[in-house]
């Protein structure tokens, strides 16, 4: 395995870890609304 492949693997692994651990406030909002009202929050507008 060459150095470029090792670097690429490391970058990809770091990103995967980030996706798992980073908070996602949008998802939390939808879940919370569903728990409170039983109705999913409206989809986020592009606006």
């Amino acid at each position, binding site marked *: 395995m060459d150095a470029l492949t090792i670097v690429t693997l490391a970058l990809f692994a770091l990103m995967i870890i980030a996706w798992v651990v*980073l908070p996602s406030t949008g998802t939390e909002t939808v879940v919370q609304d569903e728990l409170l009202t039983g109705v999913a929050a409206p989809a986020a507008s592009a*606006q």
Partner: protein
Amino acid sequence: MDAINGADTAWVLIATALVMLMTPGLALFYGGMVREKNVLSTIMHSFFILALVSVQWVLWGYTMAFGPTVGGIIGGLNWIGLNGVGLEPNPDYAATIPHQAFMVYQMMFAVITPALISGAFAERKRFKAFVVFSLLWATFVYAPVAHWVWGVGGWIRTMGALDFAGGTVVHITSGVSALVCALVLGKRLGYGKEPMAPHNATMTILGTALLWFGWFGFNAGSALGSGGLAVSAFVTTHLAAAMAALTWMTASWIRHKQPSVLGAAAGAVAGLVAITPAAGFVTPTSALIIGFLGGLGCFIAVEMVVRGRVDDALDVFGVHGIGGAIGAIATGIFATKAINPAGNDGLLYGNPGLVVTQIIAVLAVALYAAGVTFILLKLIDVTVGIRVSSDEEEKGLDASQHGETAYQS
């Protein structure tokens, strides 16, 4: 006489059509990001340039870019009106396809480059000023720089700089010129005070998809043949776009707490820009790293431009200017003759001199594009007038410049 190769010719014609599709794709990419009252005018910028520059290219643009060199600075007018540009191959540029196939392929690059700039002056530039600017810019910026970098005898090509598909010729010229446009025109009315959110993000995503699709023609077509080099460029192009989309999305997630859809789209474009000069010179893993650098570098650049209160409306400088520079310099680092013997080895393969050459090319092209763009804008401002009135801007350019509206409520 060189023989025409059917497979090479077929691939270059297909690639030409793919690159042509990028300009309407750009129209949708930009059109979705402006406000509802300016969507038609923004789309019109790209569509109109497709027609305008096609005619300009045949009449004088092509010969200025690729005609017999005049001191390494500009192509001679020998091929004006395509005089002498026939169906026989021109071995100086592509020995196995008709000269006209090469000419029309290059035409599509000349078309999309000024269209890229339009993102910087969206929502506030007069249409007639845009027409004059685009024609003059294609003539006095694009054609000379294309000659420097790609023309036989062009001084940057002679110096040994590498640009496989237009990192300097297309993206640095357009990106730097876009920044000058944004500075000269000034901010949109209400910039920073009222929301200017994209009016249709789905349109932008569709535009991104068309750009990504067309970019295979842009980069793999630049092999000017249907062999292994085209395959290599095809693979690196896709990998860089993918990696940059992941990188930008991750960066925006860290910075803004959510994974942005538009961020992923902008990241893909940033990766496509960054790999453009390197596509035919680097390995797949190098392409992934270039995609990472392009995605992260362009994300930071766009954030800095916004923080600097410069109204580059659709992030042309951050994505194309910076992405092009990152790609050009990365070519000096990652290029290897193992992929393309006609290229050169870069820093990682024992030739640090190529990085220096690439940096000189980047600086020369950026300075020239910025200077000439500034002069053109000032000339147009004192003659035609460059910016719409406040009333026209409030009303929207669709109504004030074109007498039409995109949506009937």
